């Protein structure tokens, strides 16, 4: 990318190109719209046992029918045995459990596979599907289980999660390092990547190309979306002298806007890509992993190493570190700070989109996936040392591993609690993070 030749004119042209591209995507995706966030919904829950022995069942298919028997929504239960299905409006609905999707050895209690719910305006209905038999093979359970034998497996799962967080957090951290902006809309760049890849890969309206190509397109669009945001919003705001706190609040508004535009075009459902869904596990030293997840780990590490080399070896990488280190000094020594910042957004946007594609491949695509990841990115970034790329990588890996490994000992529902607690503890005892330098804070 010939950054050095970039003039304001071509920059603007590029901004228009991004806008046009996004518009095309939006128009093409429009028929996929289904749901709304603020309205009525039904929460279905599938579990066996009760109290301390309760086990949540993941992967059970739930279908919601309206009073006329028309299907209005469907979904699969997550690790917590829950699925939230958005409804088109208040009224009476039938919630049906597809018992063929249950694990072996369990059946619906009393063979009840249908529940009827009258959902009030703006409320959420609940539908419980208790099961007979023991689904504990799927693990989960009480607050403390202490199953040490699962640690190696969870460690690998943690590396997968951590490397995805790391890829997305680098951009967040570099943007903070170079501009001082805490970008609350960074999660939406992740979602954007996943949704764009979904459109090119799995949407009936799209070209249904293979996920690898769809992913490449998503990364390119993500990079231009990042640069477009810098060019149209953040750059001008900085030039107007808008304060950092104001910009933080503006980024929250922006995150609302992007997320809900995505909600309109993509809908509220959780959907898988077409490729790499069903794979047989590889077993190695007692650790089970599907080839897809192994590829995610390898790809993530390759990208992380590439980013590291870029920062270390290339001219723009060195300039970037100089700006993150001391902006004024870098500026006075002749570095074009604005160009570096544009590059950071391009890089951050592309990396976030890539992270979104990986996350979508392993956990399916949902409009809230990016926002849900945001706090983990913050945790990784602060743990590693805010404003540095390497810190974000290390910190994110730690966050991912701790989240996953904690489930060997504690309830799976609390796995992110530990990551966020670490964030607070780090701020308490070492606010500059693991790799950060001691400075005065506050």
């Amino acid at each position: 990318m010939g950054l050095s030749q970039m003039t304001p004119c071509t920059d603007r042209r590029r901004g228009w190109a991004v806008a046009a591209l996004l518009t095309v995507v939006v128009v093409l995706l429009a028929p996929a719209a289904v749901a709304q966030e603020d309205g009525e919904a039904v929460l279905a829950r599938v579990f066996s046992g009760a109290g301390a022995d309760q086990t949540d069942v993941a992967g059970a298919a739930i279908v919601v029918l309206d009073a006329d028997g028309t299907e209005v929504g469907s979904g699969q239960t997550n690790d917590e045995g829950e699925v939230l299905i958005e409804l088109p409006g208040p009224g009476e609905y039938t919630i049906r459990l597809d018992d063929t999707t249950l694990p072996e050895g369990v059946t619906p209690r009393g063979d009840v596979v249908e529940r009827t719910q009258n959902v009030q305006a703006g409320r959420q209905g609940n539908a419980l599907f208790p099961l007979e038999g023991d689904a504990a093979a799927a693990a989960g359970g009480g607050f403390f289980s202490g199953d040490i034998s699962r640690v190696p497996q969870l460690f690998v799962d943690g590396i997968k999660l951590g490397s995805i967080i790391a890829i997305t957090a680098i951009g967040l951290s570099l943007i903070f390092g170079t501009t001082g902006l805490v970008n609350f809309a960074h999660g939406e760049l992740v979602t954007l990547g996943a949704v764009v890849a979904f459109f090119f890969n799995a949407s009936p309206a799209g070209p249904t190309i293979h996920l690898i190509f769809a992913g490449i397109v998503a990364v390119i669009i993500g990079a231009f979306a990042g640069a477009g945001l810098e060019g149209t919003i953040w750059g001008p705001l900085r030039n107007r002298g808008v304060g950092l706190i104001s910009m933080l609040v503006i980024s929250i508004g922006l995150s609302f806007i992007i997320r809900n535009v995505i909600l309109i075009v993509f809908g509220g459902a959780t959907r898988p890509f077409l490729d790499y869904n069903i794979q047989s596990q590889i077993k190695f030293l007692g650790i089970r992993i599907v080839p897809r997840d192994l590829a995610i780990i390898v790809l993530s590490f390759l990208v992380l190493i590439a980013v590291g080399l870029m920062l270390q070896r290339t001219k723009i990488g060195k300039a970037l570190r100089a700006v993150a280190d001391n902006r004024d000094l870098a500026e006075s020594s002749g570095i074009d700070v604005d160009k570096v910042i544009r590059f950071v957004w391009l890089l951050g946007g592309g990396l976030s989109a890539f992270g979104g594609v990986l996350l979508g491949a392993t956990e399916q695509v949902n409009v809230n996936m990016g926002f849900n990841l945001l706090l983990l990115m913050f945790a990784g970034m602060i743990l590693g040392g805010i404003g540095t790329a390497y810190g974000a990588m290390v910190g994110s890996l730690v966050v991912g591993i701790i989240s996953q490994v904690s489930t060997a000992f504690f309830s799976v529902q609390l796995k992110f609690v530990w990551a966020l607690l670490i964030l607070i503890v780090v701020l308490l005892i070492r606010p500059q993070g693991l790799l950060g330098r001691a400075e005065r804070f506050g």
Partner: protein
Amino acid sequence: MELGNVLIDGLRAALGVEAVVFALAAIGLNIHFGYTGLLNFGQVGFMLVGAYGVAIMARQCPSAAATQSAADQIGPCGEPLIFGVILGIVLAVILALLLGAPTLRLRADYLAITTIAAAEILRFLFRSDTADPLTNSVFGIQQFANDFFVINPIPAGRYFGQLNYSSQQLWTMVVGWSLVLLLTLWTWLLMRSPWGRVLKSIREDEDAARALGKNVFSYKMQALILGGVFGALGGMFLAIGTQAVAPDTYIPVRTFFAYVIIILGGAGTIWGPIVGTFLFLFLTSGLETLLRELIEGGIIPSSFISLPEVGPIRFIMVGLMLALLMAFRPQGIFGDKEEMLLDAR
């Protein structure tokens, strides 16, 4: 197609229970952000502890309860509502102390991240199965505030014509808005005192306040506690008014809404939270009804905007309001131009 409905729906929202809740949370947040400059993004965490304080204290006891997990319920139940209110306030104070001790010495953006994380930790904890005996996990607790409605002196019936409030709604609103006015009066008294002057000086420049002998940490903590307790009162009011608590009511979006409200009404002004709440709910609910009416009346073709898209559009508008106000009118709709020019944030 009834354009009158737009006005009525807007007005109903701007006066109803939800408005009271937002106003209370925003008055508290105004003390944090508007007067002291604390970037608290976890206001919803204070609302959560307030709401659950009331719900857990006053919930029905296992023998009478019909919930599936009633058998292993632990902790208090069936206590008078007022004990719940006290518990909620105590919990808010404890939360403020726990949250403030490590973070009030940090930079503003760190405080923002930490507070939002803390609020999410609370939500995850309260919705987890681990906490089920206390919180009934994702299902929450219902029907615990009969004490409040039993003392309703307003005779049954519908009130205010087309606004069509039930006597219970009206009772809730009367109590709620009285509380809002009371807290506004308290805030006004505080902010015209030397105590409020110290808070404002911290907002302007905490080092300057420190150099003049003010214990900045202590004042920030006092502000965090006070605003947090106001937020908890908002949560309690939501719990009591709807007779229900559920963990996923207390998501970060609520805090963001409260920010829109105080920026809309004018951060650091006495009437800002109330004016902002009114404008915010009137505009967003009015817009939602307007769009629905336009679509149902066929004026906007449903191929362009369909009914399920109205909700997200409302959120997009909220986001736009937040971003545009912050970029162009950080002093709020009615704010002072001179002050805006001085706004260093």
